């Protein structure tokens, strides 16, 4: 399987197959001097006039087993039901490896192993020693970063440039950051005698498989909890490699347990009566189900759910930077990001210019083989998600928004979507209300700051928002009034282990990252 090579099977589509709509007439540079396109810029809808040579990252560094069992009590074990499922490379639709199909009986074993470790080893261990295990893990992740990045790209479909430069450095940094907290918990909540909850049940999504693992596991272990983690069924493989890292770090048995399987296995895990803390990242719909499953119990719960972020561009913004930020905001990770800037709100006087510049920029995005180091937009992770994106794009067209796509060439196989730009979008359109979780940007306009706030907050979500303006006082005023847990001003999609991240409203509750992310794994009411 490892010998399979990626041949650049491509088909010419786009410009020839579906001619893009007429480009909007370029505005006469409203209020911005001569905003002429730079010399290398393309006409809208034109393919790049030159070819990039393939620059594939080698996958030789990843040595995969044919099959991966569950990781329970420090050992790899088959599921008790005996089932297996296949993880597929979204860029080729070919199988990568088989993974055990864990069920409720496996959850039972894993929770028991975690409870045992909490009582016998991890719970009583001084924070100073726990800390060193976490530093060890951070170091091993750094040492094996290339291998993990390639595997993540294979299993998820995201570009190697992103796994290498974003995901893996952040994964290591999260363990590093929380490692230092393990022996300083008393200073995290002075006067309140913080204690671990006990056994943490953690269910994570497929868009950042290893990064979400790090966001969950690192603070949980630092606080002294033990963990049962259920990775997403579409992307279980990097978690299995993490199990190997735990083994290399000689982490005591049962401190981290990993149960792969379908969504029902995750529900069995969060519903288990011997679980003390539940953390979930994923869709709002599943988040609601988990909140109901936890209702009436004494479990602590944090949820990081969907979003429909507004990215607000004022006329005085540095437009070149704003355009880069808009592109990063929605096309990073194929738009499969809960905090993606999927609603662009542009001040009316610069709307035409921003849209024109966006088209030029989008035409330079390279969509294709995720393992190619030049690729900007990789594969959509799974077929149901591809269908969802296509459904919402079709709904956008049907509801009267104007669609534009660059004339890029998509690979023949695999699940790919062209970067998509919708203009003339109304707030009532599905593409302005529903989380698409794909490389689809809806453009709306506004005139006054109040109108921008009104439109930005006109959603049941509240995860993130962006503001682009050169006026400092406006940034602070907008930041205050946006109902979102994270506000990026003159930047977008920034993450750091020291920075708390999480949503308001139906984007969930609780924070991950920073001091607040640590507090979510501590019981502060021990003295009550």
């Amino acid at each position, binding site marked *: 399987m490892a010998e399979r090579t990626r041949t650049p099977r491509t088909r010419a589509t786009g410009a020839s197959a579906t001619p893009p709509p007429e480009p909007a007439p370029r505005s006469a540079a409203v209020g911005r001097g001569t905003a002429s396109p730079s010399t290398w810029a393309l006409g809208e809808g034109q393919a790049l006039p030159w070819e990039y040579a393939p620059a594939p990252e080698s996958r030789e560094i990843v040595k995969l087993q044919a099959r991966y069992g569950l990781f329970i009590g420090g050992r790899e074990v088959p599921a008790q039901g005996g089932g297996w499922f296949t993880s597929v490379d979204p860029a080729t639709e070919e199988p990568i490896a088989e993974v055990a199909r864990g069920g409720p009986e496996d959850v039972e074993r894993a929770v028991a192993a975690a409870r045992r470790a909490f009582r016998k080893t991890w719970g009583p261990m001084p924070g100073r020693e726990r800390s060193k295990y976490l530093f060890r893990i951070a170091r091993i992740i750094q040492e094996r970063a290339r291998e993990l990045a390639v595997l993540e790209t294979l299993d998820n479909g995201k570009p190697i440039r992103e796994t290498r430069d974003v995901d893996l450095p952040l994964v290591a940094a999260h363990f590093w950051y929380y490692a230092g907290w393990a022996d300083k918990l008393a200073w995290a909540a002075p006067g309140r005698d913080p204690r671990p909850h006990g056994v943490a049940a953690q269910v994570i999504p497929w868009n950042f498989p290893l990064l979400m693992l790090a966001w969950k596991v690192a603070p949980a272990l630092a606080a002294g909890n033990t963990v049962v983690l259920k990775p997403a069924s579409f992307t279980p493989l990097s978690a299995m490699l993490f199990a190997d890292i735990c083994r290399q770090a000689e982490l005591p048995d049962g401190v981290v347990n990993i149960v792969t399987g379908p969504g029902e296995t995750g529900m069995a895990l969060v519903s288990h009566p011997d679980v003390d803390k539940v953390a979930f990242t994923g869709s709002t719909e599943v988040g609601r189900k988990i909140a109901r499953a936890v*209702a009436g119990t004494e479990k602590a719960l944090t949820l990081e759910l969907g979003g429909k972020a507004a990215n607000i561009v004022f006329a005085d913004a540095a437009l070149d930077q704003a355009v880069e930020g808009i592109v990063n905001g929605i096309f990073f990770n194929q738009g499969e990001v809960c905090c993606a800037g999927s609603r662009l709100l542009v001040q009316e006087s610069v709307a035409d210019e921003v849209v024109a510049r966006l088209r030029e920029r989008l035409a330079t995005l390279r969509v294709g083989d995720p393992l190619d180091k030049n690729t900007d937009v990789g594969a959509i992770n799974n077929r149901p998600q591809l269908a969802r994106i296509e459904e919402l794009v079709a709904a956008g067209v049907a509801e009267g928004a104007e669609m534009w796509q660059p004339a890029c060439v998509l690979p023949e196989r695999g699940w790919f979507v062209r970067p998509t730009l919708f203009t003339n979008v109304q707030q009532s359109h599905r593409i302005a209300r529903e989380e698409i979780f794909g490389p689809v940007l809806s453009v709306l306009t506004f005139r006054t700051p109040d109108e921008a706030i009104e439109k930005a907050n006109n959603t049941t979500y509240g995860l993130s928002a962006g503001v682009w303006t050169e006026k400092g006082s406006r940034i602070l005023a907008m930041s205050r009034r946006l109902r979102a847990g994270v506000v990026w001003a003159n930047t977008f999609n920034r993450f750091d282990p020291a920075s708390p991240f999480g949503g308001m409203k139906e984007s969930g509750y609780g924070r991950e990252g920073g001091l607040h992310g640590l507090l979510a794994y501590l019981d502060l009411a021990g003295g009550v």
Partner: protein
Amino acid sequence: MPRTPKERPAPVRIAVRKTYKLYVGGAFPRSESGRSYVIRDAAGVELANAALGSRKDLRDAVRAARAALPGWDRRSAMNRGQILYRIAEMLEGRRAQFVEEVAAAEGIGPDAARTAVDRAIDRWVWTAGWADKIAQVYGTVNPVASSHFDFTIPEPVGVVGVVAPEGSSLLGLVSRLAPVIVGGNTCVVLASEGRPLPAVTLTEVLATSDLPGGVVNLLTGRRAELVPWLAAHLDVDALDLWGVPAGMRTAAETEAAENLKRIARPPRGVDPERFDWLDDARAERPEWIAQHLEMKTVWHPVGM
């Protein structure tokens, strides 16, 4: 034989009784349902009628709380602190009345009632002082690796539904209510069902303390009737369930999941009806303010 005026007994003065009403949007309406229920003291003697709040009253109260939110949130932290302190001042001035009402409501002696009322006043003072400090204790500047200034500050979660403790008619209520409003939230409170009169009298204190109308809205009535509507209301952002009977908690939290309301409930192993509200170490905790706050993180590049 005609009586002389000298022999006529002195006329007995008839007391002016108070009508215990709801407190919504700064006004004191009766229930729109026209209903009331009899409140008795611990010995079963009738004390008064209280308004039997309805679903419609609850919706009106949520609307008033939502309308009051932007104004209260915009107040400076110091100003909110001064208003909470003013509540303590007003309560102190009516101390004797509250001692009498709490004693009657809870069936305790005057000394115990005095202790509870004094502590309720002190709890307002304790909470008032947090107004301009909570952001410094819970806010952070985050040392991110990239070239950005990154900070996290608390903001109010919005409209909070507070189900007040059933037993401790004044001190329990104050201990759960004050942390909600000090952070800039507005709220809808369901008073103790069996002992609501001190809570209603407290709204008279609130109304005369510069607290803007609608920041606190208080209903009296039946838990079983009102809690499900409060838990299900989609314009309520968070719930404080300390006063919800154990048998109703699962249903309330299940309803609350529909719009992912934040849930504040007693810590593991704590029975809210046996909780000692006089124990400051347990009753005065900053996380009971922080649990009704959202943390907002803001990033900005650093550069020339």
